């Protein structure tokens, strides 16, 4: 199956940002889940930028972060946000538009 989203995704480097608050269990879980999903679906085509809002609360403004953890897909366009610990891989893939919503 050659889905359009998949095709677009194949062409570019993915720029992801994960907002966390210190080493809270949800933040740690989210990072681990994200890393696993990316290695599986976006091998060598992604960067993950982890931003700890405990350290830099002012950075929450730019991406309008309210919930923790929040994953922001900055590239490719359009901007997508996924909140939560990303424990559901299927829904995370849908959210990242790596898989079409069935």
């Amino acid at each position, binding site marked *: 199956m050659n889905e359009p989203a998949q095709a677009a995704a194949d062409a570019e480097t993915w720029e992801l940002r994960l*907002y966390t*608050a210190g080493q*809270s269990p*949800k933040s740690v*879980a*989210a990072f681990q*889940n994200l890393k696993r999903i990316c290695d599986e679906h976006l091998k060598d085509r992604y960067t993950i930028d982890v931003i700890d*809002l*405990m350290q830099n*609360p*002012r950075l*929450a*403004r730019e991406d*309008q*972060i*309210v*919930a*923790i*953890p*929040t994953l922001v897909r900055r590239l490719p366009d*359009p*901007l*997508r*946000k*996924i*909140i*939560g*610990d*990303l*424990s*559901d891989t299927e*829904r*995370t893939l*849908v*959210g990242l538009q790596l898989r079409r919503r069935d």
Partner: protein
Amino acid sequence: MSKPASATGAGRPLPKAPTGITGLDEITRGGLPRGRPTLVCGSAGCGKTLLAMEFLIRGATEFDEPGAYITFEETGEELAQNVRSLGFDVDALVADGKLVFDHIHVDRREIEEVGEYDLEGLFLRIGFAIDSVGAKRVVLDTMESLFSGFSDMAVLRSELQRLFRWLKDRGVTTVITGERGDGTLTRQGLEEYVSDCVILLDHRVQEQVSTRRVRVVKYRGTAHGTNEYPFLIDEQGISVLPVTSLGLAHTVSDERLSTGIDRLDTMLGGKGYYRGSSILVSGTAGSGKTSIAAHFVDAACRRGERCLYLAYEESPHQIVRNMRSQGIDLQQWIDKGLLHIEASRPGFYGMEMHLAVMHRLVRKFDPGLVVVDPISNLASAGTADGAGSLLLRMIDFLKSSSITAMLVNLTSGGKSQEATDIGVSSLIDTWLVVRDIEVGGERNRGLYVIKSRGMKHSNQVREFLITDNGIQLEDVYIGPEGVLTGSLRLAQEARARAEAVEQQQQRERRQRELERRRAALEGQIAALRSEFDAIEEEARIVAEQGLVRDRARLQDRAAAEALRGADRVEE
């Protein structure tokens, strides 16, 4: 060690953060609970955001308490724009580090929820905003947007609970705004989280007149006003009108003020009204009530007092022009800043709002005299039953401020002259009635004093004339034909004058006649006198002639005797 009673809690006053908003601190007895959240709720457009904003701005400018404004709906720039029109320089406060805005925007469409999350980001952002200026005051406007941003209500509610506890722990005085729901204070039940103080704003339209009202629904641990109080939003922000529950304890003045009309001064014990008293001028249409008020204003301005003229019928220009035709130049007082005429349509807003406007104007202008022209129109702006109590408050307010009040009341023709539509007569110290007297095909004005507390006043009806030189009061003609006014009075006076002339002429005629008779008698007397003189003269001549003759005869006889040598014969 025994603690003082006040420290046990019963008598200890709750620490409060004054809002600086006119009137609100009075009804909350000092402000919002310090270090606790307060919920401000109301329907759309009722002034929640403005109240919250003013709370922050006044905190920053007047109480040296920096503030953080967390907005969930409008951006900080939009908010600043909105309040800039109210004369608050938000930009300067932001530049000085006394105020900070943060716009928290949650758009459900771009958010996917996968797994567990919390709102720690919200805490961090609010915390960051608070820390960046050292905020003592925080506004959250309107949190309810969060409810549409997240689908997991359980998480949201527990996080909100945590948020309010956290805000309390940080010791910031917080205002949370909330949209009014159907039958509940807020749509999302925010009142469950905020238990300390709830303020309800209301924007109601009654008989097509809108009035904003504020009510402190609950305020834990303190006494507060429980009524609904009207409030006003204008270029100075919000002002709440605390409805004063005045006792009758105001001080009174013995000073007397000229009415500006000489004859009226004499009618009022020779000196005029008392300072700080309430004067009612009532009368039918066109009877000259405004003129009486204008004279009083003119006299007050001449003394250098400031006057506030609230006109509900005529525009300032119209009043100035009309009074100029009577020789009263009000414009000079306006130019000198002694007179301010505030004209507004009675129906423009509700009665309470008129009262609030008056409060504000009185505070700003600090007048010695306030004229309300007319109160009857004002009553039409609200419901009839509310009008009386409102005027009572108005009069009370002016009395307690020792401001002389002149209220003009238009009575409708059919009713008794002595009844005011609004029933305020018992509050009035001096009551003048101008009535028209219709007689002999004309309508003339008569003026009398119904009452004037604390002074001897005339019981006479005076005819009231409006001339090029102002008001003149004339005695009415009271004669066998009854009370006469206008041209009948003039005719009667002319008749009286003619009679007087006639009498004068008669008197003169009689005098002339007597004079003539006297002159005639004098002539007769002169004639008799001359006759008398003639007779007397003749008698003298006769007597003289007799003497001469006798002497001659004696000489002759002596000569003869000598001749004869006769002896002496005694005769």
